[in-house]
């Protein structure tokens, strides 16, 4: 078969390098994609809208309903609101090795959240509900830090996440 690159490039050595570059890029993409799919890691992508000015009137994000809830299958759902300059509720406790679904909404501007050393992270965008599911293999004290600039108090926007050993019976 004739090399389809032949019309663009005469030197065979150069063409070989172009093919190798293509192969390398495709290989890296393939490995990363396979890894993500096989371990079921997806970025937060639920595309769900909400009126951020009326969060307190919704059932899910009303103040009394925020926090950790146990689901029937043993997994947990954590509902949180991000508002300048804090995450509510400010303290969350979850057990190790348990799937936790986080659902978060912003009451004002754009925020983000990341718990360092874990893959718990999402952008929190006014008008949208963010959702991601993860689990924490290691017990310990973690922090939720706001990682999207949200105003002059952005630095002080953080809250506590505690992961307790499942066997120690920490979950409520």
């Amino acid at each position: 078969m004739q090399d389809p690159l032949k019309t663009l490039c005469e030197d065979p050595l150069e063409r070989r390098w172009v093919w190798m570059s293509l192969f390398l890029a495709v290989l890296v993409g393939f490995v990363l994609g396979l890894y993500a799919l096989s371990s079921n890691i997806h970025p937060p992508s639920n595309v769900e809208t909400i009126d951020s000015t009326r969060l307190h009137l919704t059932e899910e994000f009303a103040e009394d309903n925020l926090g950790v809830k146990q689901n029937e299958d043993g997994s947990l759902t954590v509902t949180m609101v991000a508002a300048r300059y804090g995450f509510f509720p400010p303290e969350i406790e979850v057990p190790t090795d348990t799937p936790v679904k986080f659902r978060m909404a912003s009451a004002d501007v754009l925020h983000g959240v990341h718990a360092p050393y874990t893959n718990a992270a999402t952008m929190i965008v006014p008008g949208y509900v963010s959702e991601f599911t993860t689990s924490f293999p290691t017990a310990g004290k973690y922090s939720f830090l706001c990682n999207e600039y949200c105003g002059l108090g952005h630095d002080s926007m953080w809250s506590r996440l505690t992961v307790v050993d499942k066997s120690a019976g920490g979950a409520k």
Partner: protein
Amino acid sequence: MNDYKAPGLALANMWVGFIAFAAAVLLGVYQVVERIDLVPALKSPELYFGSVSTHGVLMGFVLTTFLIMGYGYYTATTSLKQPLWNKPLAWFGFYLAVIGVLMAAAPLLTGNAFVLFTFYPPLVAHPTFYIGAVLLVVGSWVWCLEMIMSTMKWKKANPGETIPLAMYGTTANAIMWLFTSLGVAAEVLFQLLPWSLGLIDTVDVGLARTLFSWTLHAIVYFWLFPAYIAFYTLMPKQAGGKLLSDQMGRLAFIMLLVISVPIGFHHLYMGPFQAAGWKFLHMTGTMLVAVPTLITGFTIIASMEIAGRLRGGKGLFGWIGKLPWNNPMVLATGLAMLMLTFGGFGGVINASYSMNVMIHNTQWVTGHFHLIFGGTTVIMYFAIAYYLWPKMTGKELHSNGMALKQLWLWFIGMLVLTLPWHQLGLDGQPRRISSTPYDAELVEKWIIPEMAMIVGGVILLISALMLVYNLYRTHGNQVAVAVPEVEYAEPVHSIARMPHLMNSFGFWVGLIIVYLVASYGYPIAQFFLMETFGAVPWSI
């Protein structure tokens, strides 16, 4: 007659860029010092975020745009050997862009636009900030028009001839920027500006971010393009050799043009307003953009090898030592390649659908782009300036030795600044913070990298001052330039007849449009198909 080359226009543009650069480096040093909680007297979120907003705008929009315009104008005249298509219009574009910068500067300096260079709605800035941004972009569109029309005029006058590689690349960049800038232009014109003026009450933040992402990736290739053009068309000659292949250069430029615009979507990985399938598709597109860079790496290193062997280098690596490392263009290319290699590894992590979540918006990201953008790209801007200043002013460079030291300092400073910066990100420090009032266990880990960053920042500041001083003194040099013409590198074998596809743009423009519609059509349309809730403006 040197008149047709328009050196005054190129110099004016580039000086605006470098003045902005010098001011921004000073702000950068202030930022690394402020952020560490050691000097309480310096603490001020207002100053910090004002500074970061200004630093980002000056480096990301002003230095780059003006340098690209200046270099482009000089490339157009010297490679095509003809006057610009419309010189008065080019000056008009320059003044428009300068007025835009001044208009944006007023609210930035008075505390009315601390929205960072990525705009961050629903935080709102004073309308003049957005108007200034629009004028700067419109000024850059004038440049795009000049580049495209100059090339067309040349083609008409030279039917069947091959467009010189330098101009082929510059025109590709102009076309790319026209497509790229549409996203941010739409965001500002239809959303942010009317909203800041009170003409509309709310903006959809999901849509705004999607439009901004359209611009956000290819803009970095807009910045990087001049570096690649210098690699291919200036460096081989300066190294004493030839360009391995003219066609590989064209192929790389075409790939950058076509592949880079539709992949800005990877900046939305963490956004809840786009679906996972689209993100996954865009990851594959993103990986492909490594291809033109790999091609460039091969062609440029091979061209250096040719030069080294022509100069008597033997053995597997003997040619490296024979290269004229005392030539700023050659030295900068070598250092830029090293930084590009380090930075490329980091980039693969960022581009990854699954791994990005660990480092998204941590200091890893700022460390990464300082290395590639502040490092690779900007060091080539320096090399271009060192090479062109003597041609444009008619005077020899004030000091070649100082230029070499400056480049080395920039390289070392960048490594000292950015390696610990990546570490900070892995240790979880979010970007865009002016203080660290967090858990003590976490903060303790950040102190040493932050101190190292101050050292890096100071080295970079010294280097930046050396650059500006050297260029400034060149204007007053008594020694006339020895080689007044820009010497473009010859390819090893010249092609008698360039394939039509590699000597034109029509087909590629069609391809970009198809690719753009396929990759961004639905993700933008969805905001009009579902019920969304806009956000009202918030002040900082």
